[in-house]
């Protein structure tokens, strides 16, 4: 009964490693902002920007989970719950997009009736300009 542990109950991550990790994450943020401004159309790869942005985001999340969230040193079962949750979301998105690609994007093209009515009303009798400059 007296076998209590009063020492550390978890791996201790060095402060320097945390600071370095944060630096890497900030650099990756700058990279993703920079990549977003590139024009990949010349390479003729559709959604290249989106793909790169999501890839960089995934790398950042991986780093946060492994270092900041201790997954690198935790029991693998804990990481397993996280990975399963992510996989379920991917599965959800994947099936939803499969369905989306098989249907017309619009049931009724154009503005919906209330929107059109609102627009007509707005520009039939426009209020005098009161924009602030």
């Amino acid at each position, binding site marked *: *009964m*007296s*076998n209590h*542990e*009063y*020492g*550390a*109950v*978890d791996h*201790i*991550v*060095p*402060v320097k490693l945390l600071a370095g*990790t*944060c630096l890497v*994450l*900030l650099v990756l*943020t700058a990279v*993703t*902002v920079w990549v977003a401004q590139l024009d990949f159309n010349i390479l003729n790869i559709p959604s290249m920007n*989106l793909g790169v942005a*999501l890839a960089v*985001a995934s790398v*950042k*999340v991986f780093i*946060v*989970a492994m*270092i*900041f*969230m*201790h997954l690198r040193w*935790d029991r693998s*079962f*804990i990481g397993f*719950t*996280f990975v*399963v*949750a*992510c996989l*379920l979301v991917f599965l959800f*998105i994947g099936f*939803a997009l499969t369905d*989306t*690609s098989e249907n017309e*994007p619009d049931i009724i093209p154009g*503005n*919906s009736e209330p*929107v059109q009515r*609102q*627009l007509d009303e*707005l*520009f039939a009798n*426009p*209020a*005098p*300009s*009161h*924009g*602030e*400059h």
Partner: protein
Amino acid sequence: VAQLEAIHDHGHAHDHPDHLGHHWKDSKQQFEAGKLGMWLFLSTEILLFGGLFVAYAVWRANHPEIFAYGSQFLDTNLGGLNTAVLLTSSMTMAMAVTFAARGKMTAVVICLVLTLAGAAGFMAIKYIEYNHKIHEGLLPGMAFYQQPSASHLWLPLDELGHQQEAEAALIAEQESAAFAATTKLESEMPAPPANAEIWTKPLAATGPEGFTDSKLKIETSELRIFLPESVIDKVEDAGPMLNFAEHHTPGEVPHLAHPLQDPLRPVNAQKFFTIYFMMTGLHGIHVIAGGIMIGWLIWHTLRGRFSAGYYTPIDLGGLYWHIVDVIWIFLFPLFYLI
């Protein structure tokens, strides 16, 4: 340690630390179980946001033009700044856990206060962004189709409300890359398009007389407007354009018209702002909850409730704060960087 080993009177005589529940073998087992519970909760958080990510994916797959258009109205600098703020606060949170495990409770409090400052900073920047959206009428659903009460984007209309002219002026602007930046040197300015009919030269190059034309009279020192022939035909009254030129100083960020006046606005442009407010709003609620939690941690750390032997709430609270960061890491490129 003496405090932890103090015998407390609740009906039995053996000693154990205050924090340790009777049903646990030791602190480590209790900690591991709590951690697993927290991760299961975080998994449900991922699934909660997962539903919104699905909505985002389906909407964007169906109408990429809405997202490309709406994203222009978000400030990438503020979004990037918020990313940096959140990442840094994640670091200080992780450092708080490290210091807690080493028993350096003063450092823990400092790190937690910095983390709380990060949460407050994030919400302050978010407030600036939301405030701007609300003033411009960039709102979800039908609210998007009301004329904003105070907008910097709303093109000036004359007394008769000449919407057509405003739209034509906007097309002129968009088609012709009309605005030279801050440069005053002609050589640094872009060449006029081949079909330009009117080209006002900068003051430094042409002198103070400006430029006069039978159709359009635009006098300005640094502003150049290239008008393709197709546009000249549309502009019967240059009033709105002159009005626009008067109210916008050269070197200003090229004007982005209010979506409601913008002839290039895609159908259902409001959907971008709907999903933007839903996702960043739910995330913002999590940031506020995280901030309250960090405040709670600071309070109990100051009361001396935590030690190197027991800092489970700091560790698990940290995990929650990191998941808030994780969600934002995806939200940032999906909304700001399109």
